C-alpha cells in the first residue's frame, strides 16, 4: 500500500445562505498517491472545482470550510496561516488551470513568470534560475526554450501556454499537482499531447496528480483512480478497472453512457431524397491589413465543395480556426462569399442579396453554439419560436399554436411558451433554439457546434433529439463540430477541414475504418478515450 502524498478527510464547504443547496461539497474524502493520477469527474455544479480550490487554500471569500482537513505528506495544511500557505503553494502543492493563456500575466515575458516561482520561494541561487527555467521548458517538451523564455503569452499557442503553466507548476517539484480541466480549452490534437505529457510526468515527477474533468474520454486516457462527484458529494470512488468495467452507481453509468462513442452511425441506403444543397468551389477570403496599402489574404474557406441530400447528415469536423464556422455562415449567407457557387432550393445563392435571401431563409435554418446568447432575453420563448412563421406570413394564432407544438416536439411542455429564456437551463435553451429553427419546416438545418457548451449527459440527449427529429421531419443536417466522436455518432458522412480546405470527405464508416490522410489519422488518434472501448462499456452499463 503506497503512502498518499495528499489526503482530503471529510471535507465540507458551506455555501452562502440563499444558495440552491447548503454545501458546495459535502463530506468529501479523497487521497492521491505519488505516481498516480486521481481523476475527479463531474458535471458543472458538481463541486469538483471547489474541492480543488479548497486543497489549494484558495476558496473564494464567500465559501468557508466547515469541517474536514487536508493533509499533504501526512501534515495538515495550515489553511488559516497566509504566510505558511504561501510557502507551501507553488512548492509542495501546485496547480494548473483551464484557460492556459488567461492564467499567464499578459504583459510579462513567460520566462520571467516561471522564474518568479524560484524567486518568491528563494529556491537556488539567483544566477542559476534562468538555466532552471530553460531546462523546465525542455522537460515539458517546449521547442526552442530560449525563444519561449522571451515570449509573451499572446505569442504562444494555447498548448504552448499550457506547457508553460505546467513548467511553472513543476518548478519546485511539488508532491501534489492539481489540474483543473487542463485540456478543456484546447484543440483535440493539442489535448492529446498535453495528456501524453501528464502521463509522462506521472512517471518522472514522483508526484500525485489530481485531475479534474467532465470528460470520461480524458479519464480513460490518464486516470488511475476515479472519483465521481455530483451535487457536492462523491457518489462513487474506485480504480480505473472497477469504474470502467463495473460501475456501481447509477450516475456513473449514466455519465459513461453519455460519452459519445466513436462508432459510426449505421449506413442505411434509404430512400433517396432529392439533393438539398450543393456547394461548389466556395471560398471566403479575409483581408488583413498589413501596411498602408498592402493586405494579406487569409483564406478562411478555400475551395470547398460538397452536396447534401434530404434526410442525411453531413458532419463538418475541424479544430479551431479550420474555417468550419465560416463555411456554415457562407452557406447561410450570413457572410459574403468570395468565389464559387451555392445551389439551394433550385437557386444560386452565392451572390444573392440579403433581400432575395430573406424568403429563402424559411428553407434553411441554423442552431448556434451558445444557447445562452442565441435567445433574446426579453422575448418570451413562445414568441421566439413563433417569430419565424410570423415573418414568413403565418397568422398570429396559427404561429402561436405551431410554437407550442414545436416546443412539445423538442421535449418541453407547451406551457414553456409563456416563460422567458433565463428560466431555462442550457440544454433546455438549446431545445428551444432547435424548436425555433424547425418551426419553419426547413429543408436544411445547419447546426454550428450545438452541443459543445453543454454538459456531457445533456449533450447526449440533444444529439438523440437531432437524430429523432431528422427521422421524423426529413431535413438535411449540416452538423459542425470539433469532436469526431460526436460527429461519428450522428453523421452519415464526415468532411474533415483544416486551414480552410477539405482534408478528407467520406462516409463515416469508411473514414473511421480506413482514414487516408495523415491529419484525419492524427485527429482520430487524438480523440480522448481511445484506450477504453466505450461501446463495450456502453453494452455493460445499459441493461
Amino acid at each position, binding site marked *: 500500500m503506497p503512502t498518499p502524498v495528499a489526503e482530503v478527510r471529510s471535507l465540507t464547504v458551506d455555501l452562502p445562505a440563499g444558495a440552491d443547496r447548503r454545501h458546495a461539497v459535502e463530506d468529501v474524502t479523497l487521497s492521491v498517491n505519488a505516481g498516480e493520477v486521481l481523476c475527479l469527474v463531474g458535471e458543472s455544479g458538481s463541486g469538483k472545482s471547489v474541492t480543488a480550490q479548497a486543497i489549494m487554500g*484558495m476558496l473564494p471569500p464567500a465559501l468557508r470550510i466547515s469541517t474536514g482537513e487536508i493533509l499533504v505528506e501526512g501534515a495538515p495544511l495550515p489553511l488559516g496561516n497566509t504566510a505558511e500557505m*504561501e510557502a507551501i503553494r*507553488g512548492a509542495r502543492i501546485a*496547480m494548473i488551470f483551464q484557460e492556459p493563456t488567461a*492564467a499567464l*500575466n*499578459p*504583459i510579462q515575458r513567460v520566462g520571467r513568470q516561471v522564474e*518568479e516561482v524560484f524567486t518568491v520561494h528563494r529556491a537556488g541561487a539567483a544566477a542559476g534560475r534562468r538555466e532552471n527555467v530553460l531546462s523546465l521548458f525542455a522537460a515539458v517538451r517546449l521547442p526552442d526554450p530560449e525563444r519561449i523564455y522571451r515570449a509573451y503569452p*499572446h505569442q504562444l499557442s494555447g498548448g504552448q501556454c499550457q506547457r508553460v503553466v505546467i513548467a511553472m507548476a513543476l518548478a519546485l517539484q511539488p508532491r501534489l499537482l492539481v489540474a483543473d480541466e487542463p485540456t478543456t480549452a484546447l484543440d483535440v490534437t493539442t489535448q492529446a499531447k498535453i495528456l501524453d505529457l501528464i502521463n509522462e510526468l506521472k512517471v518522472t515527477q514522483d508526484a500525485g496528480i489530481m485531475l479534474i474533468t467532465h470528460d470520461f474520454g480524458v479519464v480513460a486516457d490518464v486516470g488511475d483512480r476515479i472519483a465521481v462527484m455530483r451535487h457536492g458529494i462523491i457518489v462513487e470512488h474506485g480504480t480505473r478497472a472497477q469504474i470502467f468495467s463495473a460501475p456501481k452507481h447509477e450516475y456513473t453509468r449514466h455519465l459513461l453512457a453519455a460519452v459519445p462513442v466513436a462508432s459510426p452511425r449505421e449506413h442505411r441506403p434509404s430512400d433517396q431524397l432529392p439533393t438539398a444543397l450543393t456547394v461548389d468551389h466556395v471560398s471566403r477570403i479575409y483581408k488583413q491589413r498589413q501596411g498602408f496599402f498592402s493586405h494579406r489574404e487569409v483564406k478562411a474557406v478555400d475551395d470547398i465543395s460538397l452536396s447534401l441530400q434530404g434526410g442525411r447528415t453531413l458532419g463538418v469536423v475541424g479544430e479551431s480556426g479550420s474555417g468550419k464556422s465560416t463555411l456554415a455562415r457562407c452557406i447561410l449567407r450570413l457572410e459574403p462569399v468570395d468565389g464559387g457557387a451555392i445551389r439551394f432550393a433550385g437557386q444560386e445563392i452565392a451572390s444573392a442579396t440579403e433581400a432575395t435571401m430573406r424568403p429563402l431563409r424559411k428553407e434553411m435554418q441554423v442552431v448556434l453554439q451558445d444557447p445562452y446568447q442565441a435567445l433574446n432575453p426579453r422575448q418570451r420563448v413562445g414568441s421566439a419560436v413563433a417569430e419565424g412563421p410570423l415573418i414568413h406570413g403565418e397568422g398570429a394564432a396559427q404561429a402561436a399554436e405551431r410554437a407550442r407544438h414545436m416546443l412539445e416536439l423538442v421535449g418541453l411542455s407547451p406551457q414553456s411558451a409563456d416563460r422567458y429564456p433565463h428560466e431555462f437551463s442550457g440544454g433546455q435553451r438549446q431545445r428551444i433554439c432547435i424548436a425555433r429553427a424547425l418551426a419553419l419546416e426547413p429543408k436544411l438545418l445547419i447546426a454550428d457546434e450545438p452541443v459543445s457548451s453543454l454538459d456531457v449527459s445533456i449533450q447526449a440527449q440533444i444529439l438523440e433529439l437531432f437524430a429523432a427529429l431528422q427521422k421524423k421531419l426529413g431535413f438535411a443536417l449540416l452538423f459542425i463540430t470539433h469532436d469526431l466522436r460526436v460527429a461519428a455518432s450522428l453523421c452519415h458522412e464526415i468532411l474533415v477541414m483544416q486551414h480552410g480546405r477539405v482534408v478528407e470527405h467520406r462516409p463515416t464508416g469508411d473514414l473511421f475504418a480506413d482514414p487516408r490522410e495523415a491529419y484525419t489519422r492524427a485527429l482520430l488518434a487524438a480523440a480522448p478515450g481511445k484506450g477504453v472501448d466505450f461501446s463495450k462499456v456502453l453494452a455493460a452499463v445499459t441493461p
Partner: protein
Amino acid sequence: MIFWFLRKILRAVVTLWIVVTLTFFMMRMAGDPAEALVPPDAGPEVVEYYREKWGFDQPLSVQYGRYFGALLQGEAGVSLHTGRPVVGIVIDKVPNTLLLGGTALAIALSLGISIGIVAALRRNSALDRAVMAFSVFAFAMPNFFFGLLLILGAALLLKIFVGGSNAGPLGLLMPAATLGLAQLGAFARFTRSSMLETLNKPFMMAAQAKGVPFARRIFRHAVPNAAIPIVTLIGLSLGGLIAGSIVTERVFAWPGVGSLLIRSVETRDLATVQFIVLLVAATMTVANLLVDLLYVVIDPRIRVK
C-alpha cells in the same frame, strides 16, 4: 507596428486638418471678416484698407491657401486690439496654464490612483465607500462653485484673499485643487474598477497558486495590468482639464490661456480665439498620440501587432 503608429499619425493629421478647415470656413460664415476683425467704430475706408491688406478681397480658395501657408510658418494673424501677432500673445500665457494644469494633473493622478487602488483592495469597506462617495461628489461639484467656496473659506478662515496676482503656495494650490477635483474623482473611480477587474483575472489566481505573496501579486501583477486602461483615461482627462482650466482661471483670475480666451470671446477678438482653438486641438491630438505610444511601451500585445 510601425504602420499601426503611422496610421495613427495620419489620422491625427487628418483630424487637425479638418479642425483648421472648419474653423476657417466658420470664420468666413460669420460675415465680412474685415468688418469683424476691425473695431466697430472704424470707417468704411479703414475696413477696405484691412480687407486688401489681409487679402479678404481674394477668392475664398486663395485665402484658405494663404491661411494654411501662414499657419505652417507659425503665423495666425494679429490681434485686433493690440495689433500684436496672435501667436505671441497666446504663447506668452502658455507657461501659466501649463503650471496650473500640470499641478492639477499631478495631484489628480497621484492621489486618484492611490486611493483607487486602496479602495479596490478594501472592497466594500467603509474606506471603499468613502472613496466612491468622494468620486461622486467630485463628479457633481461644479468647479466654479468649488473654487468660489475655496476662496470664501480662505477669506473667512485665513483672512487671505486668493486670486490673480496673489502669489504664494495657496495661490497655486487652490486653483489646482479646483481644476483637479473632477479628474481626481474620475481617476479614483476608474482605477478602482480597473483594479477590481484585474484582481478577478485567472492569472491573479495563478500567481497565488504559485505562492506569490500578496504585496508582490498586487504590485508586480495587478497594478501594471490595471494601469493599461488608466493610460487611456489620462488622454481623455486632458479635455476635461482644458475645459476646466478655462473656468478655473476665470474664477481665480489666473493669467493663463483660459482667461485670455474668455476675454477674447468677450471682445470678439476672433483671430486670438481661432488660434487658441487650434492650439487646444493640436495639444489634445498630440497628447492622444503620446498616450498611444505609451500604450505600446506598457502593453506588449500591441507591440507585435
